[in-house]
């Protein structure tokens, strides 16, 4: 085999507290479709971002067509002939298809756009991807599948040699997906380099020539051909790891039902959701990105208004219209996106701990008791071993794990009955993870009902008494700890081939 057109050489990428990519070596051949598979957070997306210039690798480099490259901006990557087509498309919805195709280099005469030539060129480009789209339509007027074709045509317009797809079929119907595969095969035969990221394993067998399996930021195995390969083997490689027992799980007795959710329906769900959690029980919610777990939690918490459904805490039906109501009833949430929804970055650690203890009344407990807040904050910082130079330190200067502990501390003095933890350990290191697990166990021992939403399968298996699997906006099944295996849960979470209806 000749030298691969695209080579990753010792590429690593570290974020504070996490090694997102660890010494990646990977070769991608010309005229082939190379699939990347792995669980959420395995490193596929980070790798695409290194390829597209959105992230600069901490170390290592790429070789593109024999030249050593490290991209420090997306513009550099585009010039080098790289296009990444993301799940959310990057088109200007209000502009025409033709304008989108040639954005940044519109055909012009002394700065005046040459409409006629633009239309002709656009039609030629669209024909390359076999689409008969009127180039004068605005992008927002097109269905998703056609927008994707426009995105591909745009990549070709820019002379892209390497085209990477990130979950391209997640919002396509089966027929549309087949059409996309047609285009991809065509691109392959014209000598393009195709990278294909998907959770849908059947697709990989349909379209890919080679598969690389990622886990925990590393390449675990490379299969140069997909012949003879089965889903089982791939799933096994995706999950199989030396399971060090960082979870230190011990069974607990459960009390009566603490949280009952009955027929809750709202944005992000496709079917009304019902489930219960007992006092002292830890229930893990597993699903792929977009399965509707976060949305369900926000509905239960009142951050999104449910269309219908009932929520009861310890037998009392809640009237949840805002998070404040939920908190007052002893139901709290630690949000998924720590940076965007959890912390107040420019405020101090002390402020971040105390912020919601002052709710209630028109102005809350209007006058602040500085002393009490200081005692409370320093108590939590000490007990939870939050590493910070001081209480007045801005929380944004802390590591992810310490930020997460600070957000947890916010709720610990509440009369808490139910806690919803959405991705509580995402992006934090092993040590901090263990500390968070022990806080979770401690809460459960005090009869708090705990829900842990996580995309980290071993974690879900490691700490949950019971696991509820969600897929594409619905609850699929609830499995007791004793019966749960990684293979079984992942098989439930992966979408069926038939269910390519697309999310609402």
């Amino acid at each position, binding site marked *: 085999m000749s030298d691969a057109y695209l080579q990753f050489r010792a590429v690593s990428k570290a974020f504070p507290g996490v090694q997102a990519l660890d010494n990646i070596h990977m070769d991608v051949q010309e005229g082939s479709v190379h699939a990347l598979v792995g669980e959420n957070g395995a490193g596929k997306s980070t790798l695409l971002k290194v390829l597209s210039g959105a992230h600069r690798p901490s170390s290592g480099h790429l070789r593109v067509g024999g030249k050593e490259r490290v991209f420090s901006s997306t513009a550099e990557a585009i010039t080098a002939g790289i296009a990444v087509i993301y799940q959310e498309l990057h088109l200007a919805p209000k502009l025409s298809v033709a304008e989108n195709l040639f954005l940044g280099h519109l055909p012009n005469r002394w700065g005046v756009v040459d409409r006629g030539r633009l239309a002709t060129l656009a039609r030629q480009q669209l024909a390359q991807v076999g689409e008969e789209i009127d180039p004068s339509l605005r992008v927002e007027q097109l269905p998703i599948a056609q927008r994707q074709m426009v995105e591909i045509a745009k990549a070709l317009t820019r002379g892209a040699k390497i085209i990477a797809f990130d979950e391209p079929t997640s919002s396509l119907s089966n027929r549309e997906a087949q059409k996309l595969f047609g285009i991809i095969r065509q691109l392959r035969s014209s000598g393009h380099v195709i990278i294909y990221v998907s959770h849908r394993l059947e697709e990989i067998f349909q379209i890919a020539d080679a598969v690389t399996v990622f886990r925990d930021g590393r390449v675990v195995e490379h299969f140069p051909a997909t012949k003879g390969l089965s889903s089982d083997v791939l799933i096994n490689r995706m999950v199989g790891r030396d399971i060090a027992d960082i979870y230190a799980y011990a069974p607990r007795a459960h009390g009566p039902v603490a949280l009952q959710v009955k027929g809750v329906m709202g944005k992000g769900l496709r079917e009304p959701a019902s489930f219960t959690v007992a006092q002292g029980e830890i229930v893990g919610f597993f699903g792929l990105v977009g399965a509707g777990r976060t949305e369900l939690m926000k509905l239960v918490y009142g951050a999104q208004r449910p269309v219908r459904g009932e929520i009861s805490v310890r037998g009392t039906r809640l009237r949840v219209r805002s*998070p404040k109501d*939920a908190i007052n009833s002893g139901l709290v949430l630690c949000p998924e996106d720590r940076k965007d*929804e959890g912390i107040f*970055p420019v405020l101090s650690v002390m402020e971040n701990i105390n*912020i*919601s203890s002052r709710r209630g009344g028109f102005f809350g407990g209007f006058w602040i008791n500085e002393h009490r807040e200081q005692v409370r904050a320093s108590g939590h910082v000490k007990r939870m071993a939050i590493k910070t130079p001081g209480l007045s330190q801005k929380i*944004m200067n802390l*590591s992810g*794990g310490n930020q997460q502990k600070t957000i947890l501390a916010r709720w610990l003095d509440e009369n808490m009955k139910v806690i919803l933890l959405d991705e509580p350990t995402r992006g934090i290191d*092993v040590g901090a993870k263990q500390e968070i697990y022990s806080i979770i166990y401690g809460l459960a021992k005090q009869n708090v009902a705990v829900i842990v939403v996580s995309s980290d399968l071993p974690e879900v298996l490691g700490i949950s008494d019971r696991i509820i699997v969600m897929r594409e906006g619905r609850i699929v099944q609830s499995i007791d700890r004793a019966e749960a295996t990684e293979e079984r849960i992942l098989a439930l979470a992966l979408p069926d081939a038939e269910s390519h209806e697309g999310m609402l």
Partner: protein
Amino acid sequence: MTTTNTTTSQKTIPAASRTTLPSLLGSVWDRMGMLLILIVLFVMVSALVPNFLTRVNLLGLALALTTVGAIACTMLFCLAAGDFDLSAGAVVAMSGMLAAVVINATGSVLLGVAAGILAGGVVGLINGVVIAYMGINALITTLATMQMVQGMAFLVNDGKSVGIREGRFFALGTSSFLGVVTPIWIMLACFVIFGLLLNRTTFGRNTLAIGGNKEAAHLAGIAVARTKVTIFAMQGMIAGLAGIVLSSRMTTGQPNTDTSLVLQVISACVLGGVSLAGGVGTITGMITGVLIMGIVQNVMNLLNIQTFYQYVVSGAILLTAVMLDRLQQIRRKMQNR
């Protein structure tokens, strides 16, 4: 197992407690920068500009700041919550006119003052409801209400100013206590009250939290919309009060808006380290900003610099302040990475 544990936590420590010299200097600048500039400026002009450091001039300087100073207090809350208010200048004109007309009609100073403050509060309430509950951009909303309120200020007396006939009303603008005139005392009272409100009350801390991260504030159980409405209503009432004090000083209600007033207020806040992105702001910083603006203007007056140049200078100061704010935001982002 234990080995992975220790290596990973070692990796995270430097990120948490990194104190290099530049970042240390940076944080000193964050806290003290403008105060240092104020002190240097004050010493310089005291030494160089004749008649600056006199009791009469300094009291005159303070009096000239009263309108900007009072409104800056509530503007600080608007900015800290991540919004701002352009309508305050028009409210000043409208409330002054309204007070003048009501006082002339009823002969009651109290009624006139109440009418001016209340009218300002209503404008603020409308701003707040539209911005917080309907999610409409603060710039557009307050630009629109500014225009409407300006129109109303003209409508009150057909565009003409109103001479106030009730002499007792002038006490508000001209009486003095301990040798300092009442408007200055009112401004100082605003500094103290809003300083305490920002630092010592849940309302103040929630304001900063909303500006710092609106979504997180909502999820932490803070009533975001209600807090914002309260802030805008407060802002309207203080602008109303400022308008009344101004008309008392002038002994007339003036329907014309001083268009540069709001810009001066926002410049003062931003100079004082209040972030336009929200979440950051202190009363002492804001006061520093107000004083810098005031001294620069006072000095230009003392040096007989033409008003037209003064516009250029005020604008340049605002631009500088905004650029400083931007630089700090960029620095914060870098730290955050």
